[in-house]
């Protein structure tokens, strides 16, 4: 049995794609490593951009201009135009299926200003925008009787003559590997901030598993060096302290209690200023004490609660220790304007893809928009693609290969604790491939990643069980992060300029020669990184 469209990932992008593909009459299945509603999407607080003009005058043109500016010249104007022009329609669609957006006094969808935008453009549901969109999408999926396989972890994609034919999964509950055949596949598996383990706002699940599987299958990746850092993660956990704390008048202080940057500058500028202080040996703190208890409890109660729970400090009386942490990955699977990757029939949408709309830096409020607007587009295009697939080729070779990989992993000696290596990889990426990148440090990091990769055969499992073996899943995830660290580090090394979220010491400004996207692929076991003008 072959599905028309197999959707991998049950976050916002996957669920939207599923609803659209189903509407188009496709026979579909959604597979996820966790339950729908537990994905990264639920963490998005700020909002979803759409030039509705409900609060003040706005236009899709202004939205396009802001997005282009943020992208640093390496995004596709045509894709951005599609996204921004479709935005009001996407938000109205979400509204029509029941998303409880906050409202204005005159009964319109409320909007607020996020950083880097000229208009008041982000539609929101209090601080739970992602959560409420995700749950409403899930409710609609239940209404449409969409089939789910939960707690199936993606291992590999099957291809035949560069056309996707299915995917191999690990059934976490039974411990079996299972191949699911499909005429087309949509990857909606999220980003790779998890490489920065210990230094990210993301869930530990954000290990780019879909991107790594696509890369192994021969797909091209793009712009892997562009990582957005959020200036104010709590120092020891990376838990996000929202921009609203600075927006309300919170200041950043070094160990001497001195301010050192205009706190309202863009995320990358503030993150770099904090990083420079940290490099001087300073600790950096967010100070909201002067706002007063009443104001804090009324306007940013969530931030006080997070500080109490995760840092053990009360920001009404104490300064908050913070550090910039990895927040969003702009790079991912390179896709064309139909959202299809370099593998026929393999589509990618959301943070796992690079659809050339974020370029060198993502604008706040555009990620939720991308998963909904392009999620629908991916569902539609994949369904149409499947209609033209007539062959019934099923690749069983990959299933056997993947099964052998799992068997070997179960047998491998447990000489090296990969959890310690995971922590080390996080530190390494953060220290050497983070906010300010430098050739010698990137080279060091690359060598260490290669050394870790060569030790993988000694990083076996402690848990040999077949029921819900998270030791196994975490080991595979660690390997995926190593797989992705190489293109990330190599592209970062080659991009000798600073643009958007990518900052190279010694090359502090954008270089016209690099007004291009990076493309990574493997040729005869060698990693190739090319730079290519983006089709405008």
């Amino acid at each position, binding site marked *: 049995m072959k599905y028309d469209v197999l959707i991998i990932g049950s976050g916002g992008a996957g669920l939207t794609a599923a609803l659209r593909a189903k509407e188009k009459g496709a026979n579909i299945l959604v597979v996820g490593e966790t339950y729908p509603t537990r994905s990264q999407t*639920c963490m998005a607080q700020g909002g979803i951009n759409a030039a509705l003009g409900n609060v003040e005058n706005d236009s899709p043109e202004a939205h396009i201009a802001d997005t282009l500016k943020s992208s640093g010249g390496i995004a596709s104007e045509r894709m951005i135009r599609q996204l921004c022009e479709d935005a009001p329609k996407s938000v109205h669609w979400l509204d029509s299926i*029941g998303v409880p957006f906050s409202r*204005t006094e005159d009964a319109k969808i409320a909007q607020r200003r996020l950083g880097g935008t000229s208009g008041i453009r982000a539609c929101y549901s209090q601080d739970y925008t992602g959560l409420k969109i995700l749950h409403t999408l899930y409710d609609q999926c239940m209404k449409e009787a969409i089939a789910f396989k939960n707690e199936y972890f993606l291992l590999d994609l099957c291809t035949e003559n560069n056309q996707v034919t299915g995917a191999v999964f690990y059934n976490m509950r039974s411990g079996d590997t299972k191949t699911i055949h499909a005429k087309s596949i949509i990857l909606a598996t999220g980003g790779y901030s998890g490489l920065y383990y210990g230094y990210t706002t993301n869930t530990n699940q954000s290990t780019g598993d879909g991107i790594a599987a696509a890369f192994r299958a021969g797909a091209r990746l793009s712009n892997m060096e562009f990582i957005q850092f959020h200036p104010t993660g709590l120092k020891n956990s990376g*838990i996000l302290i929202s921009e609203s704390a600075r927006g309300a008048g919170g200041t950043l202080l070094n160990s001497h209690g001195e301010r050192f940057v205009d706190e309202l500058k863009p995320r990358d500028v503030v993150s770099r200023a904090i990083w420079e202080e940290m490099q001087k040996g300073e600790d950096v703190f967010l100070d909201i004490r002067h706002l007063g208890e009443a104001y804090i409890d009324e306007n940013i109660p969530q931030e006080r609660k997070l500080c109490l729970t995760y840092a053990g400090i009360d920001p009404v009386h104490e300064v908050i220790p913070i550090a910039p942490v990895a927040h969003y990955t702009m790079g991912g699977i390179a896709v064309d304007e139909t959202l299809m990757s370099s593998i026929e029939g393999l589509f990618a949408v959301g943070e796992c893809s690079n659809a050339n709309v974020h370029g060198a830096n993502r604008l706040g409020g555009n990620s939720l928009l991308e998963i909904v607007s392009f999620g629908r587009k991916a569902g539609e295009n994949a369904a149409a693609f499947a209609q033209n697939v007539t062959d019934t080729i099923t690749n069983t070779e990959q299933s056997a290969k993947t099964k052998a990989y799992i068997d070997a992993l179960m047998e491998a000696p447990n000489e090296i604790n990969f959890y310690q290596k995971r922590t080390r990889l996080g530190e390494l990426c953060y220290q050497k491939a983070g906010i300010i990148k430098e050739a010698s440090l990137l080279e060091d990091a690359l060598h260490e990643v290669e050394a870790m990769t060569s030790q993988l055969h000694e990083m076996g499992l402690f848990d040999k069980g077949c029921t819900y073996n998270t030791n196994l899943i975490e080991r595979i995830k660690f390997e995926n992060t190593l797989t992705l660290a190489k293109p990330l580090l190599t592209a970062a090394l080659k991009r000798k300029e600073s643009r958007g979220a990518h900052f190279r010491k010694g090359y502090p400004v954008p270089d016209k020669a690099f007004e291009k996207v990076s493309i990574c692929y493997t040729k005869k076991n060698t990693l190739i990184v090319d730079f290519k003008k983006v089709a405008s």
Partner: protein
Amino acid sequence: MKITIQRYCKHRDPHAIMAAYEVPIEECTLLEALYHIKAEVDPTLTFNSGCRSEVCGSCAMRINGKEKLACAYKLQEGDVVEPLSKVEIIKDLVVDHEAAQQTLRRVKSWLEKPAEPEQLTMEDEKRIEKQTDCILCSSCFSACPVLEVDGAFLGPFALTRAYRYTSDKRCTDEKNRIDAVQEKGVWDCTLCGECTAVCPQGIDPKNDIMMLRSKSAQYGYTDPAFANGGDDMFGGGFDPGF
């Protein structure tokens, strides 16, 4: 700090055992302690987690008998950690949520027809704001004593979700929704409030169920305990409070 965790494996006899662990961290959340044990002490310890900040609903478990999110709970000396109840345990602290989530299908927790955009007022939205904060962590399901005796009961989160949709101005078929919460639904609840007490999002399913009862009355439904002439008033699950 010493804590005790219930370990569960269906391939072992007895399936469940209590295991003691020493956590050498002064101040941490339970989730951080679990990460530490898994990475440094025993990688077979199995649990779920996600966002680490109380919004994904993955890490609900019982701590000293009370449902909590592990990511939001500050570890205390002597804590006893067990998986959620009323659901099948898969391994250690991981449970199977599939059956519980089926209750959402039974109550038809969705808008049946696409609504015209921008119909809601601020007040309309506020009416469903709290209910839509639900993160589907199943804490309420685990705490519900009715589910202890009747596994077919719809349970708190599905009923809260049902109330959320019937209270949505965009809902076009309230009657169908109300019909769907009669069988093993609103009247089977004892209004004990355990669900409300454990909800990490401060949602009040007990109140939502009472609201659904009054909506049911508007559609001509009555409490079956009273409908039977009151004979089994005290056996029908509804405590009238006297």
